[in-house]
């Protein structure tokens, strides 16, 4: 089974939110219903002027051990064999939000209009056509990339600041850690 994972280089994120807009556009996700499948979150640490920020783009990580799948009482959440993408069957979902409570990453979100859960599909319809996920396509700096999971997992680190411990769920994401070269 081929599977894909995200590769995130957070130091390159300029917080432009192209990934967010691209996700909304391609997937035609309704606005104003509480669903933002991909979000850039900014975390501030320290006390002025010893202050630092981290910008972290996040969505569903299509975990190897997806808790959302395990806890869904109606088995609406399933995994595609061909690419390991975890999806929510909108026919079966009853909107109980159990998946949202167990997901450490805030991936499944309750759609206020459909009263069902919604989340990132990794743009599987684009993957099928050999295209990159919409968010990756738009990212102007390479802060967000993706690739075959067997390659991605050889890169970077398993976790980063403000990212839930990955040991249990095994999210398909790696974080590039080396910083920019030091200028003179």
């Amino acid at each position, binding site marked *: 089974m*081929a599977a894909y994972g995200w590769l995130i280089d957070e130091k390159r994120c300029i917080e432009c939110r192209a990934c967010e807009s691209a996700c*909304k556009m391609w997937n035609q996700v309704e606005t104003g219903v509480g669903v*933002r499948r991909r979000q850039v979150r900014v975390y501030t640490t320290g006390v002025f002027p010893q202050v630092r920020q981290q910008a972290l783009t996040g969505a569903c990580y299509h975990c190897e051990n997806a808790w959302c799948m395990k806890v869904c009482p109606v088995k609406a959440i399933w995994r595609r064999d061909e690419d390991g993408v975890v999806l929510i069957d909108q026919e079966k979902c009853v909107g109980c939000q159990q998946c949202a409570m167990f997901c450490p990453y805030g991936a499944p979100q309750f759609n206020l209009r459909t009263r069902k859960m919604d989340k990132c599909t990794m743009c599987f319809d684009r993957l099928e056509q050999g295209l990159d996920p919409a968010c990756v396509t738009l990212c102007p700096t390479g802060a967000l*990339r993706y690739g075959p999971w067997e390659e991605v997992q050889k890169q970077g680190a398993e976790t980063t600041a403000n990212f839930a411990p990955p040991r249990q769920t095994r999210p398909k994401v790696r974080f590039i850690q080396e910083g920019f070269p030091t*200028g*003179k």
Partner: protein
Amino acid sequence: MALTRRNWLKATGTGLLAAPVALQGFEDYFQPAAGGAPAGMTRIVTACGICSPSCGIQAWVQDGRVRFLEGLPGDVSGDGHLCGKGAAGAMQLYDPDRLKYPMKRTNPRKGLDEDPGWVRISWTEALDEIAFRMKQTVDNYGAEALLFVTLPSPDLWARFMNAMGVVNRIDHRDECYQTDTVIQKYTTGGKTWCNDFENSKYILLFGWDILAKAKLAYATGIVKARSNGAKVVHFSPNYTATSRFANEWFTIKPGTDLAVALAMIQVIISENLYNKEFVDNYTNFGKYETEIRAHFAQYTPEWAEQISGVKAADIRRIAREFAANGPAIAPAHKKSLCANYMNSSQLVHAISILNILAGTIDRPGGRYFPRMHSIPGVDAIYPPPPYPPKKGRRVDGRDKLPLVNEVDQGMFSTLADGMLNKYPGMIKFSFWNAYTILGFPNPPRMVEALKTVDFTVVMDFLPTDTVTLADIVLPSAMYLEGNDAVARDYIAKYPQTVARKAVSAPIFEAKSIAYVAIELGKRLCPDYFKTPDGSWINPNTLLDEKVKRAGLGENFADFAAKGLVEKPQPFTPRTTFVSVAGADGKCQIYVPQFPAKGADPLPKWIPKRDQPNDIYPYYYMTFIPAIHRRNTTENNSILHEIMPTNHAIINPAMAKKHGIAEGQKVLVRSRAGQIELPAHLSETVPPDVVMVAHGFGHVSRAMSLAGGAGARDGDLIPDASIDDFVAAGNYAGASCIMDAVCSIEPL
């Protein structure tokens, strides 16, 4: 074979690659995708129009509707990408709140809280009425009674205004880069806003925050520069996304960058660290060395520390590094620096001097002149009859600033004062094209000014607050609905032009401003809108001719089929610079032409206008967030969802002092006005600064998302009279759009 993301994916996916391949570093790995077409979709190459670099777009259209916008591979402006605003641009095209047809006001009372009582009218009726009112105004009061708040583009629109002898035309550029335009004309010789960040080794940013605005033409350059090992130094009162990309960030007291810049010049000159080859050959340093050395001697780093709060040792060290570790660049340009304070004219001159001393004017890694296709305008293709002389008074008082007069821009900040105090009742007719009162300092005063105008026309694509004050409103096409040839002018080492092709016909009855120019032209100044054979100018034929003469294609259709045309050529640095008399083609550090035009030949220290005091103890700062463009995108449903409103962002220490909790509503006051909005506590802001995002506080409920969301930052910014500017020595007309102090209290 270079390992691109695309072929890496394919190779791995089909098992052709036996051994796993480690990523070979960012540049090898991250190539733009090979651009496969999504099934069932048509590709249209066009250009963004949300902000001025106009990044190239490939739009994917399905069943006649835009499904997806992505960057145009090979485009140098967006580096083949779009930002979050550009990617969501189609939501503006399909915004259900868009103006759909011309309308006429029936309620004579004007005000933001008055229902205009719109009645739908035909384009013919609207144009006839506008032409009648304009003619009546000019006949009775002269052309000076016309006010056009609009960019002078497209060229057909400029022709219309020239043919009508319009004296009072202003646009936002005085807030963006008028200061830079004035200074560059005399110091480096022209439009030096191209920044070669990726080849720079030392990037010095004074208040410059374009990365945090996500303007890709520059933001990606900073990211590349860091990848290439450049050092980035950021001076900014608050910590921003730009600070995150800096090796060193220094907080600085608002409005004191000038002191630090002057001290850096002092260090570089007194220690003879400047680029000798460039300074000796291409500047007037030698000719005015005595004056220059004597002038800057007073501005020591110790002096600057007292004013700015930046340590003298740091100023000295950064100045030495800047001089030694080039190529070095200190960008200016745009709201985040050129227009904020009363001392921005001097600041831009000082920054220009730093670049000249670094010897990187039109050199790799520096500020360079754009190399562009020469696209002829309508006046070159169909030479007009002589334009009438522009007679009359400038309502914004611009004629008192000779340097601003020369570059023919306008003064947003003094317009209201001119209309209400200086020349009350002079303006009888105003035409607003795609501008809202939110763009002005102290918008309520602009509303009062507009109420004094007999007849106002507003052309826009959304029912903005300004529309609420109009007598006639015209629905405007937006950028995805028109054709054009858009030259790359922000990143322009060699000529490159993108075809902006309409991805959609204008919705409902929306029309372009070129259409309005021609139709009003037919009614008011027909001789200017005819071709040599006597027929009316046709904008499509005109565009075909421009494309042909610029060498972009046989006609627009041919150009559009190519999408992007470029002429790669080696970068040949300039050897002659300033062309004004007496400059001898050199860069001017000392500007001998300035004293005759009310300016100092060398930048001297002056403080910003408003200083903290007993009543208003805090600095007030505004910013343009990454996800919105000025005041034009707040009704875009995707962008609204990401950032629906603004806050008073304050340091937790200030919040504690005043008993303000996160999210609590606060009252922020200045000598200009007051706003109420929720507080947001952040350690990114100094304890003596209140920060508010620009673009919010639209009142018009006809914008269903933006209307009523957030507060108008501009209400706290005092507008000014032209005499204030003259008295302060603000000779380049920097518009003080952030020069305010405030108080804060919980509600």
